[in-house]
């Protein structure tokens, strides 16, 4: 499935004044492409993701998924949130099963799918635990398994590793990269980490500070399995860093 964002703007009204958060966004995400939205905080990248997810309505423009306009959230677009957002009253397996049981998938098939995805994220041994018993990294693995088990064509990720410590973060980036090589989803991934974007993305969309516009798009021509210390990697990193610094500087002016 493809995502097609056309002339999209979004303004928020606060204290009677309308503040634009996104301005004239045009973006296409191809089937099986991994696109990172990168920008300083407050640049509207999460707003854009929330509009694609159907949680927010645009003020102008629209989002097409496979040519059909988005009118609300749906099972074709799986979402992974920054704050994990697991159902605390369900076990790990129950969480992963949630979408399947809504669809009325037969129990045997459900169990098989749950087992497969828990295995994929390395949590097979924790199926019967409750979210409170898990660490942040484990919770986010469950959230990823839950999104994947529902087999959406598109996965939207809103700073999914933002709340994790640096080590866990890199481990999960490795895992996500490995999972993507198996699952081949169309992914829109919001982050403010340049390293993370260069490590994961086929294309990195750098956004301007508020109101958010697209400043520049980088196509990352690196092999599927990436080395964070390769010279080409650091080259992309420094080039994007320079661009993002300009935007951060603007905020402080």
């Amino acid at each position: 499935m493809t995502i097609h964002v056309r002339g999209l703007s979004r303004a928020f009204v606060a204290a009677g004044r309308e503040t634009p958060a996104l301005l004239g966004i045009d973006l296409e995400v191809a089937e099986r492409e991994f696109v990172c939205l990168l920008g300083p905080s407050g640049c509207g990248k999460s707003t854009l993701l929330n509009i694609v997810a159907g949680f927010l309505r645009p003020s102008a423009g629209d989002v097409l998924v496979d040519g059909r306009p988005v009118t609300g959230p749906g099972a074709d677009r799986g979402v992974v949130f920054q704050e994990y957002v697991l159902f605390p009253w369900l076990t790990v397996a129950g969480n992963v099963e949630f979408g399947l049981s809504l669809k009325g998938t037969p129990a045997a098939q459900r169990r098989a799918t749950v087992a497969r995805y828990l295995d994929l994220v390395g949590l097979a041994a924790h199926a019967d635990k409750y979210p409170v018993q898990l660490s942040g990294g484990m919770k986010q693995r469950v959230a990823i398994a839950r999104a994947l088990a529902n087999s959406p064509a598109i996965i939207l990720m809103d700073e999914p590793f933002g709340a994790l410590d640096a080590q866990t973060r890199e481990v999960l980036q490795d895992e996500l990269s490995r999972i993507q090589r198996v699952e081949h989803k169309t992914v829109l991934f919001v982050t403010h980490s340049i390293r993370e974007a260069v490590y994961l993305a086929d294309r990195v969309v750098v956004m301007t500070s508020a109101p958010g516009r697209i400043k520049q798009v980088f196509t990352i021509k690196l092999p599927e399995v990436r080395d964070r210390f390769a010279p080409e990697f650091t080259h992309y990193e420094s080039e994007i860093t320079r661009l993002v610094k300009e935007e951060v500087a603007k905020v402080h002016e």
Partner: protein
Amino acid sequence: MSRDTGGRRARALALLGVLVGWAVVAYGNRAFGVMAPALLPTPGEVVAIFLDSLRDGSLPRHVATSLARVAIGFGFAATAALALGLVAALCVPVRLMLEPIIEFVRPIPPLAFLPMFLVWFGLGESSKIAFIGYTTFFPMFVAIAAAVLRVDVTLLRAAASLGADRVALIRRVIVPAALPGIIVALRLGFALALFVIVGAEFMGADAGLGNLIMEGRTFFVPAQIVMGALVLGLLGSIVNACLLAVERRLFRWRESAAT
């Protein structure tokens, strides 16, 4: 674990202290004749009257009568509070309409309306049941609506993007997420029902613990008054302990980090 037993020991000690204090004062009064002995019943007298009324079946009858009234009145109120609380929390126009009415009625002490219930429903069962229903409905309704409103919107978003429609959102997310708050509301409502049944039974009732206490006043048997009050306290504690146990069982997911 040891802290838990330590807490239990402290609680038992405190209760024992109260009992000993009461005994010292009551038997001391008897020995030194400070006031008429009948005015200050001793623990022995209360236990004796408790055993007597247990034996002749009058206490079980009073308890059963009161509990039946509480259960029916509370049952009606809880059902209504659940249904309306859910609707009010989910439907903004309903909430806007109900809010001023509830805010107006809520500060009126329920007992102020008790005579009205006797006028409307007479001296029989229905006036007590209706009064308990009226008293417990408002606090339960407000607490249940608040519990539903507190449900995290991101949980709803997560469920919606897994394919949940409106009905599934209510059944599979809102209700389980609000359930801890709903159970607390029901527990408070039940405690309140036990609280006001006594008042309702003071005024024109032929049975029930309130009636038993009032009888103690009419026939001047202070030990019976104290016994009635203690039985009420005991009932409240037992019911509360049962509900807490149910709660802990139901919500293992909230505090199971230790396993």
